[in-house]
């Protein structure tokens, strides 16, 4: 407009001055240049345009409010509502007295965003030290990925606090949990462990993963600008915490059993060893210890040999520990009485071309003495009066060739071939425990037949909440109570002078049991100078409370008989366990009053 004005004024003098009175305002319409040539539709068009845009706005508003309202509501919610995970805590594992065997504790994980990472040299050095890395290792870790790296999973709470206190930029924490195992390596094979994702990998942690894990809950909330929760929306799902698992294991017995077998393995320069302690009245597992073991807290450089729960995963030929079953069945069917004399001289016998021999000739032995002196020939003479099927039924009735119903991962079945394929020599060798295999746990379980008055009772690893503690259980009857008592008496003879295992004796308690020694099977034959020694027994013998089975693998320190290697462990474990269970001694003991050398107070006179 101003330009036009100037133009107008500039042109004015050139034209003839008009006799106009109005000099103040310019009459544009008079200027031919400025005369409006606008057609009338143009203004109408503009008005229509404005109207139309209003219509578009209205339409858009209607679309947002009516047609697409669901979508936009959702988009809005995404921006202010958050779903929070409510983590369920993993259940604890406790022993029969409620002592903790495994429990979850907070263990923050440290992570970093390397592109945000800012630290000076001393900060870096301190951070690396807290993370147990060298500074160069830390640098390499940070170079892995510019967006996210774990610096340390499941650190200690105290360490995490110190790292937070350093205030290094780009280093963050997330709250996680890890398992703590207070009993450490003593109970490692029973309890097992979890991985970094809190999933059970071994033992009870694996067997009861479902019960222990629980279920995570969720919760929808509205968060404000500062990240504070200001309102709950919708319904929240409460987390269901994992159930606590109560084992029948007694951590004191477990520890003691572990300690004894560890010492015995070291003393005998053996490869491995196991102990199983069963409650003979309820069938509960009081302890199950294996050597070599591992510390569940530090599982670096673990080998399979350490991880295996040998008591239930390793099978071997049960050897002489089978003889009491043969004697028991012979007594039960009335074929013999305890004083029946069996001719075992000259200490060997030949059966379809194969020779069975004793370690040294014994001459005439009664049935009781066959067990006491562990005569192979005597056992074979009794067993050859059985039908193969009869013997197979006896063996499977006491649990051989069957998986123990323990609900424990890795429990093996052992091997008991069907009786139809037995040759006579095989039946003979099976009577003294060769040609079949079982785990130490199976042997201990089978001995409940003798300990529980002829009944094979079911075993359990977890407490049954429906049963009151110490309630008597009943099982499958295999032998009569009278026969069981007779066999127990024979087992007692084994531990008396003249038996194979006098070292199994316990101060104050009568015990009974059977030792076993065998060449180790290697490939197709038996290895020379590689033995396995074991002992299974019970105490007190008149009314057994516990069954203890001990196995030592490859003792190589000059002693290898079950009576020399395994029986002392049995004796110590029985002594401690019965004392802890408060069982009164059933043998008279000569009191030993021990005095200590204490300097006496000087008398004044």
């Amino acid at each position, binding site marked *: 407009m101003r330009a036009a004005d100037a133009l107008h004024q500039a042109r004015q003098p050139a034209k003839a001055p008009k006799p106009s009175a109005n000099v103040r305002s310019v009459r544009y319409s008079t200027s031919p240049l400025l005369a409006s040539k606008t057609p009338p539709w143009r203004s109408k068009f503009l008005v229509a345009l404005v109207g139309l845009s209003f219509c578009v706005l209205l339409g858009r508003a209607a679309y947002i409010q009516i047609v697409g309202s669901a979508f936009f509501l959702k988009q809005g919610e995404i921006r202010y509502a958050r779903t929070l995970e409510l983590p369920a805590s993993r259940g604890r594992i406790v022993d029969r007295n409620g002592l903790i065997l495994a429990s979850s*504790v907070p263990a923050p994980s440290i992570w970093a965003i390397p592109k945000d990472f800012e630290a000076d040299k001393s900060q870096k050095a301190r951070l690396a030290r807290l993370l147990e890395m060298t500074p160069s290792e830390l640098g390499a870790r940070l170079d892995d990925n510019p967006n996210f790296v774990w610096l340390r999973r499941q650190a200690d709470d105290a360490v995490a606090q110190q790292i937070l206190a350093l205030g290094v930029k780009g280093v963050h924490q997330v709250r996680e949990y890890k398992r703590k195992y*207070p009993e450490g390596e*003593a109970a490692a094979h029973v309890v097992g462990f979890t991985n970094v994702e809190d999933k059970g990998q071994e033992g009870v942690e694996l067997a009861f993963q479902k019960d222990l894990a629980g279920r995570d809950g969720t919760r929808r909330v509205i968060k404000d600008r500062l990240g504070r*929760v200001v309102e709950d929306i919708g319904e929240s799902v409460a987390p269901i915490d994992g159930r606590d698992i109560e084992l029948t294991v007694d951590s004191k017995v477990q520890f003691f059993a572990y300690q004894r077998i560890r010492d015995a393995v070291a003393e005998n320069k053996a490869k491995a060893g196991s102990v199983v302690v069963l409650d003979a009245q309820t069938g509960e597992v009081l302890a199950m210890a294996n050597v070599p073991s591992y510390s569940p807290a530090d599982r670096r450089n673990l080998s399979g040999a350490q991880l295996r729960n040998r008591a239930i995963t390793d099978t071997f030929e049960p050897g002489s520990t089978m003889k009491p079953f043969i004697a028991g069945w012979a007594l039960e069917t009335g074929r013999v009485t305890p004083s029946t004399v069996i001719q075992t001289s000259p200490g060997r016998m030949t059966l379809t071309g194969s020779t069975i021999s004793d370690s040294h000739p014994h001459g005439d032995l009664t049935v009781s003495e066959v067990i006491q002196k562990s005569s192979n020939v005597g056992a074979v003479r009794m067993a050859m009066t059985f039908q193969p099927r009869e013997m197979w039924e006896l063996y499977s009735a006491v649990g051989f060739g069957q998986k123990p119903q323990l609900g424990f991962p890795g429990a093996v079945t052992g091997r008991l071939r069907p009786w139809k394929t037995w040759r006579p020599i095989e039946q003979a060798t099976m009577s003294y425990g060769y040609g079949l295999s079982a785990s130490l746990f199976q042997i201990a379980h089978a001995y409940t037949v003798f300990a529980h008055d002829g009944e094979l009772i079911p075993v359990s690893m977890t407490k049954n909440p429906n049963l009151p503690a110490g309630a008597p259980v009943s099982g499958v009857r295999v032998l009569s109570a009278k026969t069981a008592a007779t066999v127990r008496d024979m087992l007692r003879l084994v531990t008396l002078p003249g038996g194979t295992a006098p070292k199994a004796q316990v101060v104050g308690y009568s015990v009974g049991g059977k030792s076993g020694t065998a060449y180790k099977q290697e490939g197709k034959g038996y290895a020379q100078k590689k033995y396995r020694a074991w002992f299974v027994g019970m105490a007190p013998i008149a009314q057994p409370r516990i069954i203890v089975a001990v196995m030592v693998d490859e003792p190589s320190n000059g002693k290898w008989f079950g009576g020399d290697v395994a029986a002392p462990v049995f004796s110590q474990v029985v002594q401690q366990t019965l004392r802890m269970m408060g069982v009164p001694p059933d043998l008279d003991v000569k*009191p030993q009053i021990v005095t200590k050398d204490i300097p006496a107070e000087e008398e004044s006179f």
Partner: protein
Amino acid sequence: MMRLNALLLVALLASAMWLVRVAHDGRALFAALDRAQSEERLLDSEHERLKAEKQAQATPLRVEKAARDKLAMRTATPAVTQYVAWDRAASAAEGRTP
């Protein structure tokens, strides 16, 4: 009429301000509740940790070592134990509990 309207307007404004205030208070209280609840969870897990730690300090290994080395205790065997029979009926008659 005019006066009534003015009065209603004032009442409306006052109630609106009140609503704003109440909503804010509600949110603040809810945030405080939420904070308290997360603190409860934290204390719970701390409690759990301390219990586990306590158990780790009282393992049979440590107890036995302390008893043997520090307190010069020995394992009780039947040989050094005097067993006395407890007659349930007799002690009940005397009105004592063991």
